[in-house]
């Protein structure tokens, strides 16, 4: 062990990724979706919002590879452009939700006592809310739209992170290395974010990766209920929702974006699964 030359973290990650097939597959899927989103204008054969009512509900064919939707718009192009808001949503939720949840959890777990009780009460309240209801209400208040939908989802999903972070921090709060850090005079934000955060982060990351598919699906649910992105923006969830109107006759209209959601969340799930296997101490 001691004879090992220290590997750079990046190389280590690469090495590990190649060691876990599920993490590799997951990362590849996500990368592909990311590329599709970035290169949408070059990849999409049509303008995603171009309506041709004469050519509506066409089955997959030579001109429209995946057919057309109820407005005669090219489904493939919408699928490609749809990756953008979907990913944006995911990023937004992640950027908002995880930090809030983790910070609250760390504060509660470390300080305990009154701080913990107060914060956990708030967490309890948010947790005992019907999730979708809270999201609806939020969207109803702020108006539908991509960012508001994401905000609503973030608003309802941070408590899980707070709980997890709190439990872990509470365990850590008794650990010797935090005591040791305290002994040498490290305290305040430096202790919370320099010492505790790095330890809480890994499991939160794994959970996050797992949650991402849930976020896409929840957003799709919002879309299904008409609370997602505003028309005519192509977004997978609302595409599925539109497609379900004709699901029995033109099944492919809902199936293709549904499949896209499935594959993407599958990618995130695989990555999460792989990450978990990799960070499992028994594998070290």
């Amino acid at each position: 062990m001691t004879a090992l030359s220290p590997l750079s973290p990046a190389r280590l990650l690469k090495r590990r990724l190649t060691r876990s097939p599920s993490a590799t597959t997951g990362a590849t899927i996500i990368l592909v979706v990311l590329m599709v989103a970035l290169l949408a204008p070059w990849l999409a054969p049509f303008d995603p919002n171009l309506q041709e009512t004469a050519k509506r509900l066409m089955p997959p064919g030579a001109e429209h590879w995946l057919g057309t939707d109820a407005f005669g718009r090219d489904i493939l192009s919408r699928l490609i452009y749809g990756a953008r808001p979907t990913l944006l949503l995911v990023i937004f939720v992640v950027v908002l939700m995880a930090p809030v949840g983790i910070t609250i959890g760390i504060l509660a777990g470390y300080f305990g006592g009154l701080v913990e009780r107060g914060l956990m009460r708030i967490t309890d309240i948010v947790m005992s809310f019907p999730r979708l209801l809270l999201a609806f209400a939020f969207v109803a208040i702020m108006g539908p739209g991509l960012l508001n939908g994401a905000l609503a989802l973030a608003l309802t999903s941070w408590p899980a992170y707070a709980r997890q972070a709190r439990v872990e921090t509470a365990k850590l709060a008794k650990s010797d290395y935090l005591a040791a850090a305290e002994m040498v005079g490290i305290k305040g934000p430096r202790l919370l974010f320099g010492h505790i955060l790095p330890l809480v982060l890994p499991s939160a990351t794994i959970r996050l990766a797992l949650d991402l598919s849930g976020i896409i699906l929840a957003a799709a649910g919002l879309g299904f209920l008409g609370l997602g992105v505003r028309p005519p923006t192509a977004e997978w969830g609302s595409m599925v929702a539109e497609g379900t109107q004709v699901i029995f006759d033109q099944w492919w209209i809902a199936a293709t974006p549904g499949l896209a959601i499935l594959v993407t969340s599958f990618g995130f799930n695989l990555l999460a699964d792989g990450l978990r296997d990799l960070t499992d101490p028994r594998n070290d």
Partner: protein
Amino acid sequence: MTTAVSVKDLSISFQSARTRFAALRDVTFSVEEGQTFGLIGPSGCGKTTVLRAIAGLNTNWTGSIDILGTPLTPGRKITGEARRNIQMVFQDPYSSLHPRHRIGRILSEPLKLIGTEGIDATVTAALDQVGLPAAISDRYPHQLSGGQRQRIAIARALLLKPKLLLLDEPTSALDVTVQAEILNLLNDLKTSHRMTFILVSHDAGVIGHMCDNGVLMSHGQIARHLDRAALSQLTEEIVA
């Protein structure tokens, strides 16, 4: 000689689900400056608990604790200058090193906080002092051997030049050769830095080798005060 630590009627109890457990009851002892003071007793008798109270890590106690002339207040953490003067080496060296910080950071962070100049040189010097190469500061704790970790923990405690060092079973998990290295090192540093040690161990040999005097604890209480002669006798008895 002056008194470095004086503990009077120290009592600590732990509240758990259904019961209240008195871990320490009326523990009284004092330690002279420059001495190595042994805390002996069977597993679970409260040795670590005493050390954590003196170190200010557990502030939920009654009685009185006086360190280097300043009394501690229950419920209040130790801060400022006094904080630097009391350091502790934990029972398990691995668990007291942050697993995601490199050795360099572990050693330099306390110095940064007090605004020392030339941190890198100080760290290198400290590593050298405990017999470790400077290159080791790029490693993570899990890349070190037990003895190396132990020395890092000691180096960190010594960097702040404390007047009082609390040692909790510093060698319990090690084989005898590594243990010998560490005990020698501690004795060297004690003389060169004029420090006071409180040493916890259930190994009679280690106590007998290191301590000038001490106490025998049992079930949260002091069973006997031991001077050097008594210590020798007691530890010989056990080993024989």
